[in-house]
């Protein structure tokens, strides 16, 4: 059981380049999330999805796009990379019902540097 798998683990981008961060989960979780973690700043929500075909913005969505075509995959797209997007990106998933969610499972993160 792999849990939440993120690729790549590290990446260096030049300003203006684009890339896609991949995230896949094999737990049949309905909810998926993208957070970014900057030093000393905790985690900030970028986008989330409550199911295939449904996505919504979080606190810091500018400069990013997402899609959720399947339950398993939730890729994060960076268009026109900027130095402010240098961060560690975490994907997470959870099983959530009307009774609440049952804790998030996080991937190991993607460390992105934009130069």
């Amino acid at each position: 059981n792999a849990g939440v798998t993120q690729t790549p683990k590290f990446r260096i981008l030049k300003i203006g380049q684009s890339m896609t961060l991949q995230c896949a989960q094999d737990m049949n979780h309905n909810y998926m999330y993208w957070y970014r973690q900057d030093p000393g700043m905790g985690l900030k929500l970028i986008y989330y999805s409550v199911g295939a075909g449904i996505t919504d913005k979080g606190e810091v969505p500018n400069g990013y796009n997402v899609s959720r075509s399947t339950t398993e995959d939730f890729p994060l797209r960076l268009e026109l990379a900027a130095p402010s997007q240098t961060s560690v990106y975490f994907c997470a998933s959870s099983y959530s019902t009307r009774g609440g969610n049952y804790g998030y499972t996080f991937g190991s993160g993607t460390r992105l540097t934009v130069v």
Partner: protein
Amino acid sequence: SQELEQSPQSLIVQEGKNLTINCTSSKTLYGLYWYKQKYGEGLIFLMMLQKGGEEKSHEKITAKLDEKKQQSSLHITASQPSHAGIYLCGADEGGNTPLVFGKGTRLSVIA
């Protein structure tokens, strides 16, 4: 929007000592989650608290939820080097809203 304040921001303790980390919410707590992050790695789920007064333990880590104070505390008894890392609290606003996280408490345990 909900904000979580963690204290202290960092902590250095001698091996074998007890310690407490606090997480205070600006709004009513519906669910409070504690995670641990080892340096350079992902977050590992520790415990979830949902009811006022609830207390949970896992090995030498105990977490409590004080609903009236909108606060949770994480207590580690007889700390070990394996406890070192960043502890983050997360909370939702009910209705399956995504978790908001505190900035974390960095714990170092020295021999």
